[in-house]
């Protein structure tokens, strides 16, 4: 007997993510899920905006293996926590629920979640975030929005890194922007130099305004 089901395959994850988000929001915590390929500059973005955002801040670092990023952030005084998935290619809501139980996220905090470096699976899983931010580097090539439309389409903004080497590697920023307009029309693009921090002020200001919009 064929029975109609019509239920989202990740509904359990979605329900837990919604519960996590509601709990965090009630405590004034604003949560950002940072996506991008390995080496795009996600940790550099975290480092740069952590210095510029107002209020307490906590970071969850997701990696398949190692706690290199967490150690580097802790050395800078950032309250960073590591999820080591041991193979899983994305973070999911149960992983975030588990680590939040160990953390002491203060009321009114920023919670930055750096997802596993991957342009496919992390786009499919909500983890309790208020918004997704995708980091893309010139080094990856200007065709990424057209090749991985879902991750750009589901993000609220795009951070574009490593533009200082664009000419040397033939990165065409116009083509990149055109790709964004195709798969995610109107998506704001913020250039960032992850090493010098140039551009980070604008990103922090945008995040502050996104947070104010949620509070209203």
């Amino acid at each position, binding site marked *: *007997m*064929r*029975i*109609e*089901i*019509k*239920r*989202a*395959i*990740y*509904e*359990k*994850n*979605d329900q837990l993510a919604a519960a996590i988000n509601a709990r965090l929001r009630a405590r004034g915590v604003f949560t950002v899920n940072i996506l991008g390929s390995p080496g795009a500059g996600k940790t550099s973005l975290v480092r740069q905006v952590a210095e510029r955002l107002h209020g307490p801040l906590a970071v969850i670092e997701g990696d398949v293996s190692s706690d290199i990023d967490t150690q580097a952030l802790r050395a800078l005084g950032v309250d960073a926590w590591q999820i080591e998935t041991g193979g*899983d*290619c*994305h973070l*999911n809501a149960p992983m975030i629920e588990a680590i939040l139980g160990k953390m002491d996220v203060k009321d009114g905090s920023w919670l930055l979640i750096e997802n596993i470096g991957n342009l*496919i*699976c992390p786009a*499919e899983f*909500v983890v309790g975030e208020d918004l997704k931010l995708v980091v893309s580097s010139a080094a990856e090539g200007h065709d990424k929005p*057209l090749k991985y*439309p*879902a991750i750009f*389409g*589901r993000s609220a903004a795009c951070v574009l890194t490593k533009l200082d080497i664009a000419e040397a590697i033939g990165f065409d920023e116009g083509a990149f922007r*055109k790709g964004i*307009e*195709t*798969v*995610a*029309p109107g998506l704001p693009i913020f250039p960032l130099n992850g090493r010098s921090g140039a551009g980070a002020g604008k990103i922090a200001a945008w995040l502050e305004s996104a947070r104010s919009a949620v509070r209203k």
Partner: protein
Amino acid sequence: MHEAGAAQAIVEMLSGLAREKGASRVSSVRVVAGETAAYMEESLAFYLGFFAKGGPVEGARLELEVIKPRMKCKACGLEFERQRFSFSCPACGGDAVATDLGTEFYIDSAEFEFGPDGAAASRVPDSASAATGADGPSAAPAQGASPTPPSQD
């Protein structure tokens, strides 16, 4: 790789439904996936077989309906199915933008089998129209008519 997690979630949901409905096994499952969700049928079927072992979903056949992404032309407004390797409007050649169609990922329906005595079938709730037949064939889900994609956000 992400097919593994998806297959596990499908097996969990179907096993739960089989228990709820008193079905002895699930013989097939129809999954709807947008092309931009990027699920490979062979891989999904492989992991489904792996995770279903020993439970009511073991041996279930996967039917995967892939929804082509729809685009809308910024110049002439035409809505069209995106062709592989192309993002331009087939009518005027203008630039097009993506729509939400093509990002779905949900279980549409499944074939449940019940015990030989038929007693289990009576436990199927009335919401499954096929169980009662009272609403006639018009109550059956329209083939090819996609519901609003379940939101991921």
